[in-house]
C-alpha cells in the first residue's frame, strides 16, 4: 500500500462495505434457494458482488479473500455466459453460502485486529471440481470454449471507478507535429494524463508501448481517443496541453450512443472487432458503476476484462437494452439519503434528550410557579408548546434507534437452511412481520437467544423426514419466525410443526436431576411448569448431542439474555403438533411511561404498561391468613396483596388499606395487588441504572429523576411477583 493513505479509514470502509455486500448476497441467495435455478439478475448480482469483493480485497492485500472470491466469480461468470441448464442448484447455493461464510469469518478476524489467515484452498478445490462438473455436462457448449482463451492480448482501455449520469462523452483527435519522434510515447503521456479524469477511455492505435509502428500511425492518422469524463472541454484541453509536440487538439462532445459505437475507422480490421467487444465492456462498466470499482491495479484487471466482455455481449444481444435499464433502476443519488452514524453518538444524543426531558419537568413543575395569584396563562401556553416539541424530539430519536428485525431474521433463515441441510431434514422457513422495528440495543440482545431457539426448533422440534412420514404429517417441516408489537412490547415467536415437547420425558429427566419436589405428584405439575424445566441450566432431553444442540446449554442462556433486557420466554407446546416459543421484550429501554407514587415518604415509579387498574378498597374486602399473608377479593377475583411499605421495611407508611391505593399489576398472566400510600401522577421517565456500588435490591430495576429534581426508584413488577 502506498504510504500516506489513511489505512485505518480504508480498512473501516472496506469492512463496512463488504459486510453489507455479503449480507445482501446472502439475502439474494436465500431468497432463491427454493427455486430451481438462479435467475439472471441474481447471477449478475452475485457475480458483481464477488467481483467487487475481489477488487477491494486485492487492494487491501487480503489474498485468501481475493482468491476465493475470484473462484466464485469464475463460477458465476461461467453461469452467466453459458447458461447451463444442468446446475445442481442446492449444491450451488451451498457453495455460495460457504464462500460467504468464509469471507465473513475472515472479515471478522480483520475487524478484531487478527490476521485473516483462513485457508480457502479446500473451498476453492471444491468450487473447481463443481465448475468442472457443470462445464463438462454442458451439451454443445457453444460459446464457452472460445471465450476462455480469447483476447489474451493487453487491451487498450483504462477503466476508472464511477460512471455517473453527469458524465460527458468526447471524441478527441490529436495531431502531432510530423517531426515528433516517438509519437507513441507522447500519446501515451496524454493517455496517462487523461486517466486521472477519465471514467472511460478508448484510444487508437491501441498498442502504444510495445508496437513501434504505432508511432507512424499516430503521425500519419493522428491519435484518436474516446473519453467519458465529467469535465468540460476546456479542462480537457488544459490537461492535454498543446506543447512542442502536439500540433492540434480537436475535441468534439458526442452523445453516449455515438460513444458506444466506437471509432468510425476507415479500415475494418480485427482491431475494430476488438473495439466492439470493449464497447460492450463499457456498458458493463456503466452497469457495474455502483459497485465502485477500485481504480488501481490495472495490470491485474486487464487479463479478466476480456472474459467479461463477451459474456456481457451474449446477454445483451439476447435482451437488448436490458443492461442500461438495470443501471437506471438504481439511481446514483439513492444512497446519499442515508448516512451511517456512530452508535455512541446516538447514545449521547439519547442521553442529552433524557436530560432535556428531566429539565423540562424541573421547569414546568417548579415550585416557584405554585405561588398563589400568579397569572400563568401565557406561560402555560409556552409550556404546552415546549412539551409538544420535546415529545416530538423524543419520538424522533426513538425512531432513529429503531431498526427493523429483517437482518436478524435473515440470519435465522440461514441457520435453518444450514442446519436442516446438515441434518437431512426438509424444512420450510417462513418469516412474518420481519419489518417490525425494535430498539437497536435490544436487537443486539435477542440475536443469540433467537439463534438458539431456531436451532432447537430445527434440531429437536422437527422430526426427521422418516418420522414425519410415519406419523402421517406433511413431509415438509416448517419453522415460522414471527414478530409483532403489542402493548409496548415486541413479541417474537419461533413456531415449529414438529413433535412438540415430551412432557413425560421432561418430567423423568427432571426427576433424575432431582428437580422435582418429591411430595408433589407428577400430574400436579402444569404443562407450563414442566416446560419451564427446559430453561434450567444443564437440561436437555435430546439424548444425542448433535453439532447444533443437545448440550443443555442454550435455553438457560436464552432466558438469561432475555431477563437482562426485561424480556420473558413463554413456551407452549402440544404433542404431535409442534411448539411455540414466544419472546416478549420491551420495545425500548431508555424512556418509559410511568406512574409515580409514594409510600412511606419515598417516591416510586411503576411502568404504566403493567398496571391494569387503580382501586380504592374497603377493609372488609381483605382476607387475612393466619400466616400473615393477605388476599383481597375484587369483583369476585382473589388477588394476593403486597404492601410496598412493609415489603421494604419503610417507616411511616399507611397501615389501613382504606387510606391508600391498590394497584392491580399484571405480569405474564400473574396478577398481584400492590398497596401504596398515594399516587402522585403520570410522567415520562428516563431510566437510569442504580449505581453499581449499591447491591441489587429485589423488585427495583432502576431509578429516575422526578420533576422536582429528587430521585425515585423504579419498581420492577416481575421482581415484586417473585
Amino acid at each position: 500500500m502506498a504510504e500516506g493513505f489513511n489505512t485505518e479509514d480504508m480498512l473501516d470502509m472496506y469492512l463496512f462495505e463488504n459486510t453489507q455486500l455479503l449480507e445482501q448476497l446472502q439475502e439474494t441467495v436465500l431468497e432463491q434457494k427454493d427455486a430451481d435455478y438462479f435467475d439472471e439478475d441474481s447471477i449478475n448480482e452475485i457475480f458483481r458482488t464477488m467481483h467487487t469483493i475481489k477488487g477491494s480485497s486485492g487492494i487491501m492485500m487480503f489474498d485468501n479473500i481475493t482468491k476465493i472470491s475470484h473462484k466464485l466469480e469464475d463460477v458465476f461468470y461461467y453461469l452467466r455466459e453459458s447458461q447451463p441448464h444442468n446446475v445442481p442448484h442446492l449444491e450451488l447455493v451451498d457453495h455460495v453460502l460457504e464462500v460467504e461464510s468464509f469471507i465473513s469469518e475472515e472479515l471478522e478476524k480483520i475487524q478484531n485486529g487478527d490476521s485473516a489467515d483462513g485457508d480457502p484452498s479446500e473451498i476453492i478445490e471444491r468450487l473447481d471440481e463443481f465448475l468442472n462438473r457443470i462445464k463438462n455436462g454442458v451439451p454443445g457448449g457453444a460459446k464457452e470454449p472460445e471465450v476462455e482463451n480469447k483476447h489474451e492480448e493487453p487491451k487498450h482501455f483504462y477503466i476508472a471507478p464511477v460512471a455517473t449520469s453527469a458524465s460527458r462523452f468526447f471524441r478527441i483527435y490529436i495531431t502531432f507535429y510530423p517531426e515528433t519522434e516517438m509519437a507513441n510515447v507522447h500519446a501515451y503521456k496524454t493517455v496517462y494524463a487523461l486517466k486521472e479524469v477519465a471514467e472511460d477511455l478508448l484510444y487508437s492505435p491501441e498498442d502504444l508501448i510495445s508496437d513501434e509502428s504505432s508511432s507512424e500511425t499516430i503521425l500519419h492518422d493522428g491519435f484518436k481517443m474516446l473519453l467519458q469524463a465529467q469535465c468540460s472541454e476546456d479542462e480537457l484541453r488544459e490537461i492535454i496541453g498543446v506543447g512542442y509536440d502536439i500540433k492540434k487538439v480537436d475535441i468534439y462532445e458526442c452523445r453516449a450512443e455515438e460513444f458506444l459505437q466506437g471509432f468510425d475507422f476507415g479500415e475494418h480490421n480485427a482491431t475494430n472487432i476488438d473495439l466492439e467487444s470493449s464497447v460492450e465492456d463499457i456498458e458493463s462498466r456503466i452497469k457495474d458503476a455502483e459497485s465502485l470499482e477500485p481504480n488501481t491495479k490495472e495490470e491485474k484487471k486487464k487479463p479478466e476484462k476480456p472474459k467479461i466482455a463477451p459474456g456481457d455481449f451474449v446477454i445483451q444481444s439476447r435482451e437488448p437494452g436490458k443492461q442500461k435499464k438495470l443501471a437506471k433502476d438504481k439511481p446514483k443519488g439513492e444512497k446519499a439519503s442515508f448516512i451511517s452514524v456512530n452508535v455512541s453518538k446516538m447514545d449521547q444524543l439519547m442521553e442529552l434528550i433524557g436530560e432535556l426531558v428531566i429539565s423540562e419537568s424541573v421547569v414546568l413543575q417548579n415550585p416557584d410557579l405554585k405561588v398563589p395569584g400568579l397569572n400563568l396563562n401565557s406561560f402555560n401556553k409556552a409550556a404546552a408548546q415546549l412539551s409538544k416539541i420535546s415529545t416530538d424530539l423524543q419520538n424522533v430519536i426513538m425512531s432513529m434507534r429503531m431498526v427493523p428485525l429483517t437482518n436478524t431474521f435473515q440470519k435465522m433463515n440461514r441457520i435453518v437452511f444450514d442446519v436442516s441441510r446438515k441434518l437431512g431434514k426438509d424444512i420450510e422457513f417462513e418469516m412474518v412481520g420481519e419489518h417490525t422495528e425494535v430498539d437497536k440495543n435490544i436487537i443486539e440482545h435477542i440475536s443469540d437467544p433467537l439463534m438458539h431457539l431456531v436451532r432447537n426448533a430445527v434440531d429437536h422440534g422437527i422430526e426427521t423426514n422418516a418420522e414425519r412420514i410415519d406419523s402421517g404429517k406433511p413431509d415438509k417441516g416448517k419453522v415460522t419466525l414471527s414478530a409483532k408489537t403489542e402493548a409496548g412490547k415486541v413479541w417474537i415467536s419461533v413456531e415449529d410443526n414438529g413433535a412438540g415437547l415430551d412432557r413425560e420425558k421432561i418430567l423423568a429427566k427432571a426427576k433424575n436431576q432431582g428437580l422435582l419436589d418429591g411430595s408433589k405428584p407428577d400430574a400436579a405439575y402444569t404443562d407450563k411448569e414442566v416446560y419451564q424445566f427446559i430453561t434450567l441450566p444443564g437440561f436437555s432431553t435430546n439424548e444425542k448431542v448433535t453439532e447444533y444442540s443437545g448440550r443443555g446449554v442454550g435455553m438457560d442462556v436464552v432466558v438469561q439474555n432475555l431477563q437482562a433486557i426485561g424480556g420473558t420466554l413463554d413456551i407452549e407446546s402440544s404433542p404431535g403438533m409442534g411448539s411455540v416459543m414466544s419472546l416478549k421484550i420491551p420495545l425500548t429501554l431508555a424512556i418509559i411511561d410511568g406512574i409515580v407514587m409514594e409510600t412511606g415518604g419515598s417516591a416510586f415509579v411503576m411502568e404504566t404498561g403493567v398496571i391494569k387498574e387503580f382501586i380504592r378498597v374497603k377493609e372488609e374486602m381483605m382476607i387475612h391468613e393466619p400466616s400473615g399473608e393477605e388476599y383481597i377479593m375484587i369483583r369476585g377475583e382473589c388477588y394476593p396483596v403486597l404492601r410496598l411499605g412493609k415489603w421494604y421495611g419503610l417507616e411511616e407508611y399507611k397501615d389501613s388499606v382504606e387510606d391508600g391505593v391498590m394497584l392491580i399489576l399484571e405480569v405474564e398472566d400473574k396478577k398481584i395487588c400492590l398497596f401504596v400510600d398515594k399516587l402522585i401522577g403520570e410522567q415520562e421517565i428516563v431510566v437510569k441504572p442504580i449505581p453499581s456500588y449499591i447491591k441489587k435490591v429485589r423488585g427495583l430495576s432502576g431509578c429516575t429523576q422526578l420533576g422536582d429534581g429528587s430521585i425515585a426508584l423504579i419498581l420492577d413488577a416481575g421482581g415484586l411477583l417473585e
Partner: protein
Amino acid sequence: MDGTNDLMRQTEESPAGGQDAQKGKYMTFKSGNEYFGLEIQYVNEIIQFQAITAIPETEDYIKGLINLRGKVIPVVDVRLRFKQEAFEYNDRTCIIVINVKSMIVGLIVEKIAEVVEIKDENILPPPTIGRVDKAHHNKYVYGIGKVGNSVKLLLDPDKLLNDDDLSAVEQAGELGMDEEDE
C-alpha cells in the same frame, strides 16, 4: 527548537503539575472525635447536604441516592460506616464527593475541617499493638499524619467503600488497648 520544546513541556506539564500540587495534600474532616484525612486527588467536590432518596434493603450506612446535576450517586454516612453513633444532619453537614476507580460516591461527614499538607516523613504507619493477626482490621486507616500537635487518620477510600466490616471504635480501641476479637 529548544524553545518550542520547553514550551511544550510546560503545557504538557500543567495538568501533571496540578497532580504534583495535589500531592501531599489531604482533605480533613471530623467524624466522632477523630479527624480523618483523604488524599485530595480522590475528592471531586464538596456539596451541601441535599435530600436523599433512601433505598430499601441496603446496609444502614448507605443512606441512599442523591441527584448531582443529573447524575445519580450513592451516599454513605461515614459515622455509620465506622459504626459510630448516628448524628443529626443539619445545614452544616456536607457531602464530600469522591471518585475512586471511577466509582463516584458521596460521603456524609459531620464537619469539613481543612485541606492540610502532610509530608511523607510525617506519616506513620498505624501502630499494631497486640496480636499481629489483628492488623487486618485497620486496613482502611493506612497511616497517621502528624500536623502540628494534632493527628489525622488517613483513609484508604477504596477500602472505606468496599471492605465488609469496619468499626472506627474498634480501631481506635486497637490503637490504645487490646479489645476482644471480632
